[in-house]
């Protein structure tokens, strides 16, 4: 049995039986469609120079 806190911290999608709200993180959504490749954490991407920051 997991605690509610553990569930809320878990990275995967949760179906909380208390309220019926299904949460998932953006990172999981990105990974699910292969878009995490272009998550650019330093914010320094440029529309022109095609710089990638990973």
């Amino acid at each position, binding site marked *: 049995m997991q605690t509610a806190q553990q569930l809320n911290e878990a990275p995967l999608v949760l179906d909380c*039986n208390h*309220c*019926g*709200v299904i949460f*998932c993180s*953006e990172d999981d959504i990105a990974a699910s469609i292969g878009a995490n490749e272009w998550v650019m954490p330093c914010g320094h991407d440029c529309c*022109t120079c095609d710089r990638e920051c990973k």
Partner: protein
Amino acid sequence: MAPHYLADLVVTNLSEAWYLLESREINSRYLYNKESCELGLLPPLPDHQLQHTIANLLKTKKIIVKPSSSPEKYLERKETPRLMLFLTAACNLKCVYCHCSSKAEKAHMSEDCALNIVQRYIRHVKEVTGNTDKIEITFMGGGEPLLRINTIKKIIGYLEEMGIHGEYVLVTNATLGSDRDWEWIVSKGFRITISADGPPNVQNRQRVFANGSRRTSDYIERRLLHLSSFAIDINIRSTVMEVSAESINSICGYFQGFSCVKTHHLEPVSFAGRGNAYKNVSEEEFYRQFFSNYSRHLYENPQRFKSAWFKPFKKSQGFCGAVYFNTVITHDGFISLCSEVDSSSMSSTYGDKYIVSHIQDDNPFLPKKSIDFSENNSIENIPECRSCIISYKCGGGCYIKRDRDFKDNDQFYNAFCKNAVMLNMSYLIGSIKNVNQQSVPI
């Protein structure tokens, strides 16, 4: 399948970080927390029960804030910006929309000046990082850098003599250079962005040679076929003037025919410079159509389309490198934060804001004006951004478009921000179905 662009999306700010999203189109309601970047699908309950559920959830759900990138963290990590060199203001093309009104007879940067700038940049990188592992130079288009291919070769030769292995990017209109030049570019590991606008009817209407009537599309096709014979990936940057679905579909589809084209960026035309003459619909309608029709392609193929305009999975306090201390050097040695602002704009209302120093200044790469710009344009300091659901996604929007192409913030909000909200959140909502859902009992 959820629509890729929920034009009827209604966003309500519930508290500082929580938002309620509703769409009749898909008959669903969602909760979104912009600090933890979590999206929650609400159950189909009657309104009063749902309100109770939401209120309870807002009180009890533990929020783990997702780290965001910021200019401060960037400086703390001792990062240095890529050097973006405009080797010339001249161009062999005379694109009908050119924001900088480039033409053939404009001035070049001298070879000596270019080498001097590179030397100063190397010193700056060494001072900040302690080594020269991060020498990154973009030879920027607008003037056309391949008019100065010999200077490019000199710079690379100089770095090699110094034992420095740099990372290079070339942004070009790809209508110049011999096959041997391009083979040299490929051999040096350049990452290549080609500015090209689409199939021949689009390319030849928008991107024309300055001195005649030859078809630029013939040159682009030949070069793309040539580059496709190497095992390299290139990026295409297309300026979009006609924003109908048919037009955007044809632009996106055309470049899929070239195996070297890995990524594609579509940029809505700026109503500046020569582009100002082509404003035949309102900015609001232009951007609505652009975002709406572009979004289908973003949705269907997110890995192909990469853009500072669209980043639903990113958390950042700025839009682009302008807020992260860009080092764009104009052909006459001025340092600008935006590749669309050169020294010819200095007398404009926005020019002085973006031109932050000159290469001959004492501290040209990180002057006070650059720090001020970064602070003033962080979403933390833009009132319109504070309560916006996508403030961390859009990072305040394209600064130069906001400052130059719109008459005020209201117009920018109506044309750009509203559509960016719908696009980014539609993308998230549309993608949620792909996540492997796990039901875990409490």
